């Protein structure tokens, strides 16, 4: 546990020192959403209809931005060898780094989502559900992405490979995330969709340490 906090704390400290990680993700999120508004045109009703989908797709892409570096920098400078040889099991290392990644990407995305929902003329009924769905969905994105990042460590042009690997696995989160928000807007029950998002998160929480740990052990061989 001490090692878990040590690794997560180090990654957070690094993200703070770089200073750009969270800002870059949120800026990307904002720019993409604004681009959609320009592309689709200023009709408020169309924007309102597509708002949930646009926000989710953009959030998904934004959370992928920094995934490639999740293990890559540590692999390149030799830290990964030391992490594997350290007292913490590799599984804990994966989860610690995923936690730091979520705190610097998923959390800022969740917090900024309602602001973008206003820009896209989303019905105010959907705001609370949007935040709840993002809070449940973005950790899954990080965890699934961490498996992909661990698998592509050391690969040349790993970023492209990572997108091909991870984006299809994001589809369930996208579907139920958008469905929850749309249900809330139309007055239907959003609860079941949020529960499915929660279930997806639990599956990701169980799978990521095992798959990511195995992938990292292979990476240092």
């Amino acid at each position, binding site marked *: 546990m*001490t*090692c878990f906090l040590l690794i997560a704390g*180090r990654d957070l400290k690094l993200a703070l020192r770089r200073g750009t990680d969270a800002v870059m993700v949120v800026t990307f999120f904002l720019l993409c959403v604004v681009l959609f508004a320009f592309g689709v045109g200023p009709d408020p009703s169309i924007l309102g209809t597509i708002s949930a989908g646009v926000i989710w797709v953009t959030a998904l892409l934004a959370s992928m931005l920094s995934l490639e570096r999740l293990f890559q920098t540590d692999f390149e400078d*030799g830290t990964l*060898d030391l992490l594997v040889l350290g*007292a913490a099991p590799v599984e804990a290392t994966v989860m610690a780094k995923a936690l730091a990644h979520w705190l610097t990407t998923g959390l800022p995305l969740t917090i900024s989502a309602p602001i973008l929902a206003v820009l896209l003329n989303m019905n105010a009924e959907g705001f609370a559900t949007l935040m709840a769905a993002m809070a449940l969905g973005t950790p899954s994105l990080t965890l699934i992405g961490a498996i992909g990042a661990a698998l592509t460590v050391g690969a040349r042009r790993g970023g492209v490979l990572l997108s091909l690997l991870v984006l299809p696995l994001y589809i369930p989160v996208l579907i139920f995330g958008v469905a929850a928000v749309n249900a809330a807007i139309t007055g239907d029950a959003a609860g079941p969709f949020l529960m499915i998002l929660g279930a997806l998160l639990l599956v990701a929480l169980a799978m990521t340490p095992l798959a990511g740990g195995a992938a990292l052990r292979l990476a240092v*061989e």
Partner: protein
Amino acid sequence: MSSFAGEKLECVRGERAVFSALDFTVEDGGALQLIGPNGSGKSSLLRLMASLIKPTAGRISWNGGNVADEPEAHRARLHYIGHLDGIQPLLTVAENLRFWAGLRPEGLNSNPGDATTEALDGFGLKALANIPCRFLSAGQCRRLALARLLAAPAALWLLDEPTTALDDDGVCAFHDAVRRHRAKGGVVVLASHGTETIEDARTLDLRAHGGIAVNRLV
């Protein structure tokens, strides 16, 4: 009694055998120097000893017990220093060292503050403790990587060309550290090109074990 030993080790990298039928033994307080030309498998053997890669054949034992049976205990007793220093340029010298020490099992209980200060002092880095590592020279980075050896105790040191980029002063500090470690019964295995030697170390020439190395140029 032998402390650290390998029997009939074979290592295959990229579908070709780097070495095979390799035996070694190092007693308590002993040192083993791996020599051989580039590509003869010195680094592979060290990574194998560190349990970072698994041998395709043979076994490695510590006090007679197979290390493959107790991987955690083996990881806890060794320090591995490879070609890469594992230094994060955005963290300060002391922060890097404290992070490494914290990853060690015994680093959790002991007082890492004192141990890291002493370790930095041992390699002449005390004045640089609060400098971000991106300002360090190659030699200073190497000193910092070696300071890991002193920051947390471990019985087995596995060092891959540890004196690369070090100045005379740094080499002296390194030999001092090795001498003290061996006096306490520690084991050292290091790879080098044979230009510098550790006192009364056994040598293991990897050329004798079928490595495919570089061709002789002259």
